[in-house]
């Protein structure tokens, strides 16, 4: 720490900090455009000029480091004059179109022009104009407004990891541009809107829809991935009605989670809230035709039908599934209701199919470390994890860490297009992947002098390189991604990875899909544990079991089985045959009209209050932006009243707080120690089958985001096609661009085939969650491909 003087006051600041960092820390404002605390220093806007004693010229505060006893004036005549002049320069070419600019009212240039500028300019010539840049369906550009601060370029390079924008030409003709005009590929492109200090980059979906001063800001938690990024909903009110409409979403700063970034999925999914398929009143099916009903009628029908089924067949006939946008309170009520009705069959792990080690797992999945810890690792090891599309915000931590010496290794079922370079990577089909992981564990155990617990094949060169890297690193995190969790070998993967973690002294964690998968498991929406975390001696049926041993009645809370579960075909068939299917849902779909008997409209994440638990285990609560649209109600109210209709005791909650209090009392389970079984032999692996990899594209991951229209336009051709490598294509006699039939048991779809050598042998990638792949087969299982006749 050193002493410096700013505006006559002495402060203690960190040595090596820049003047602007020192000033920010003590709440002294210095105007700036190009400086952003999360980006590298460019010092090209010159707005932050300050006077430093004994220096002839004003110095840029962002790139001048403090030195002991430095005397700085941020408001002296010299500093202010310098800032006024810079402002005048910046405005030479900036158009005065603030009235039509979406940034107007929330614009750094406007603010600083008022605060530090001058109302007159010595320049009177023509302003320059720059052509618009087409950057895709999410970003609207007005490059004439650009002041060349390069924040967007630095964001895309340093944090986004994709160098998509650059500064071309020079001098007065300098402009931000792409190399060839094409849509941005980044999953984080929306953050460029936030870093842009002017209106050169604005959000296309909320373009011209309103002005920043009419919006009301509501704190929220992103509802699409397990990080729990903090954000703000911005809403406005139309026609003096009670309901408010979400107009845009912006990040909320939280250093320990998302810093100041959110993914495009979190930012633009709000468009789905007003989709035409939004269910706005309770619907009941009578003799195959759907009719609107009052809540009273719909709920009493639910209670009657469910009650009579349970009376005649016992509580065991009920199966319950909860989707990941269900809040903790809703999950708590749902499992309480299920168990009060005498059923143990409840599950929220929609994208898993190997539950053989569930009794030994943590009550709810964990990252194994804090999200912020990822900044200071030596080695990060991903196993079956497409972190770029599934948890894009994590890459904003990984990319800058790479510069500081982080090395990332991965073992993946395909060569994912990460935005950061990998030090070592193994790409192999599911069975070979298991072999290589076992080989890695055996190799590391041998090097550590421990007796190998598993016999494995010879490790490949890359596996050996990964072993070497892991053995030579201090701080390591192992992360098991959504692909590994969805695999039929998930328990073997988990066991081997936790062994590996113990051997190399690493943290081991999971990255499951969905906003509240963690919270739902915590409150007991699993068949093998109660809300208090106590394991059941006789667990109920998990999601796979529920479909293999069909129940008579099902309650589905906030999910669309045709697109949201791994075993879509079997689930649809079982639901079709069930006597009663009650859907608590914000959106309806054609498939749902088929299998459901009663649809109850519940509030999507913006219209309900509640809590999500993120992968670190921290519980974050949020308030509803508005009263729900139409006749929709928050799911916790629906569940509470449904329980009353079913005449169940202990459901007399008067408010959400009452549910929350009950939850916090009941679910006060200490984290039990996770003792995973040690895998001794590898599960028998089938060879010579074509295994379907079934990742969910980022914009198809849940019901809300599937309905966000602008995001859908970002789907690229390779994300909606079946992918195989050239070898597989030639053995099947298929060519790039041809239509193929993919078949799995009874279900069959037609899809365009593309040859992509990122896919290993014996694998075909057919994305889940697409409208064409809805209800198709099971993920991560064998499929056959044949040429389509059509």
């Amino acid at each position, binding site marked *: 720490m050193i002493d410096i003087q700013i505006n006559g006051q002495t402060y203690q600041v960190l040595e090596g900090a820049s003047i602007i960092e020192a000033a920010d820390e003590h709440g002294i404002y210095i105007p700036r455009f190009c400086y952003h605390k999360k980006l590298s220093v460019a010092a090209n806007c010159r707005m932050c000029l300050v006077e430093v004693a004994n220096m002839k010229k004003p110095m840029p505060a962002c790139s001048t480091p403090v030195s002991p006893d430095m005397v700085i004036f941020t408001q002296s005549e010299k500093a202010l004059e310098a800032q006024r002049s810079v402002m005048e320069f910046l405005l030479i070419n900036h158009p005065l179109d603030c009235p039509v600019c979406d940034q107007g009212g929330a614009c750094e240039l406007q603010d600083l022009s008022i605060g530090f500028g001058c109302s007159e300019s010595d320049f009177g010539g023509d302003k320059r104009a720059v052509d618009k840049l087409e950057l895709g369906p999410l970003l609207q550009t007005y490059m004439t407004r650009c002041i060349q601060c390069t924040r967007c370029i630095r964001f895309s390079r340093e944090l986004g990891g*994709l*160098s*998509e924008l650059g*500064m*071309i*030409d020079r001098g007065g003709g300098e402009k931000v541009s*792409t190399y060839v005009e094409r849509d941005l590929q980044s999953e984080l492109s929306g953050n460029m809107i936030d870093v842009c200090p002017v209106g050169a980059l604005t959000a296309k979906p909320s373009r011209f829809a309103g002005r920043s001063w009419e919006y009301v800001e509501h704190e929220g938690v992103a509802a699409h991935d397990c990080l729990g990024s903090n954000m703000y909903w911005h809403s406005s009110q139309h026609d003096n009605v009670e309901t408010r409409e979400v107009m845009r979403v912006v990040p909320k700063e939280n250093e320990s989670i998302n810093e100041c970034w959110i993914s495009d999925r979190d930012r633009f999914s709000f468009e789905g809230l007003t989709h035409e398929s939004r269910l706005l009143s309770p619907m009941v099916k009578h003799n195959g035709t759907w009719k609107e009903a009052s809540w009273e009628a719909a709920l009493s029908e639910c209670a009657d039908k469910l009650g009579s089924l349970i009376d005649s067949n016992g509580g065991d006939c009920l199966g319950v599934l909860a989707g990941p946008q269900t809040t903790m309170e809703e999950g708590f009520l749902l499992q309480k209701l299920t168990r009060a009705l005498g059923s143990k069959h409840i599950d929220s792990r929609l994208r898993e199919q190997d539950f053989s080690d569930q009794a030994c797992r943590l009550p709810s999945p964990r990252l194994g470390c804090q999200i912020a810890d990822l900044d200071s690792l030596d080695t990060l090891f991903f196993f079956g994890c497409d972190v770029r599309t599934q948890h894009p915000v994590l890459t904003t931590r990984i990319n800058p860490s790479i510069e500081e010496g982080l090395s990332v290794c991965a073992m993946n079922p395909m060569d994912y297009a990460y935005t950061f370079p990998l030090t070592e990577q193994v790409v192999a089909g599911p069975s070979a992947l298991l072999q290589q992981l076992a080989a890695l564990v055996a190799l590391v155990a041998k090097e550590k002098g421990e007796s190998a617990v598993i016999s494995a094949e010879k490790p490949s060169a890359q596996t050996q390189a990964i072993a070497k890297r892991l053995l030579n690193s201090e701080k390591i995190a192992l992360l098991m991604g959504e692909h590994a969790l969805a695999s039929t070998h998930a328990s073997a993967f988990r066991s081997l990875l936790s062994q590996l973690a113990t051997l190399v002294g690493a943290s081991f964690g999971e990255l499951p899909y969905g906003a509240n998968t963690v919270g739902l498991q915590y409150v007991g929406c699993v068949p093998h544990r109660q809300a208090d975390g106590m394991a059941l001696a006789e667990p109920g049926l998990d999601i796979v079991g529920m479909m293999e041993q069909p129940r008579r009645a099902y309650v589905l809370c906030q999910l669309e089985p045709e697109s949201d579960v791994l075993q879509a075909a079997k689930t649809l068939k079982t639901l079709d045959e069930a006597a009663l299917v009650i859907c608590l849902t914000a959106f309806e779909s054609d498939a749902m009209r088929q299998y459901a008997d009663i649809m109850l409209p519940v509030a999507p994440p913006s219209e309900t209050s509640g809590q999500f638990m993120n992968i670190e285990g921290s519980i974050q609560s949020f308030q509803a932006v508005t009263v729900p649209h139409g006749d929709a109600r928050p799911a916790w109210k629906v569940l509470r009243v449904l329980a009353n209709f079913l005449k169940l005791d202990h459901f007399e909650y008067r408010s959400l707080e009452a549910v929350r209090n009950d939850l916090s009392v009941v679910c006060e389970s200490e984290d039990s120690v996770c003792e995973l079984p040690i895998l001794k032999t590898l599960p028998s692996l089938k060879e010579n089958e074509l295994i379907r990899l079934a990742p969910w594209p980022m914009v198809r991951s849940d019901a809300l985001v599937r309905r966000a229209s602008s995001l859908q336009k970002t789907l690229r051709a390779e994300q909606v096609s079946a992918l195989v490598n050239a070898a597989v294509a030639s053995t099947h006699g298929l060519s790039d661009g041809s239509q193929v039939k993919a078949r799995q048991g009874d279900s069959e779809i037609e899809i365009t085939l593309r040859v992509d050598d990122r896919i290993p042998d014996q694998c075909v990638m057919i994305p889940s969650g697409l409208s064409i792949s809805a209800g198709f087969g099971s993920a991560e299982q064998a499929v056959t491909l044949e040429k389509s006749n059509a």
Partner: protein
Amino acid sequence: MSDTHGLSQSTASVIDVWIKKFPEGKARSAVLAGLKAAQDENGGHLTNEIMENIAAYIGLPAIEVFEVASFYDMCEFKPIGRYKLSVCTNVSCMLCGSHAIVDHLEKRLGVKMGETTQDGMFTLRDVECLAACINAPMLQVNDRELYEKLTPESVDVLLDRLIAEAKSGE
């Protein structure tokens, strides 16, 4: 680096030489040398393909190569004439009569600044200071040779010589 990513061996070796001159991890410093070598080889202008190849060879995103190429005046993106005449129109040259030189060139060649003659012989460019103010006005041929203390007459002599040179070269 045995794979030249579509670049010729000679261009690739120029880049290799320049990469060695800079500390490890600073390979991007070789971009300009690579662009110049590739442009000369391609008859005076760059194409997207060349820039992509250089980017791939050095291991940079294409936009970062394009940034450099668009910054420097000597990088051309369209086919140009055999001789590029870069006439300085900056202050010193202007005061010493570069307007007369420009007018004369435009009249003699029948094209405007920035254009190429029909026969593909000359391209006219007005450029900023080329650091020969002491002998203004001046022009530069093909980014290499400087011709100073110009008068319309000496320009004619120069043009005649270049035309003769081109003819004898054919």
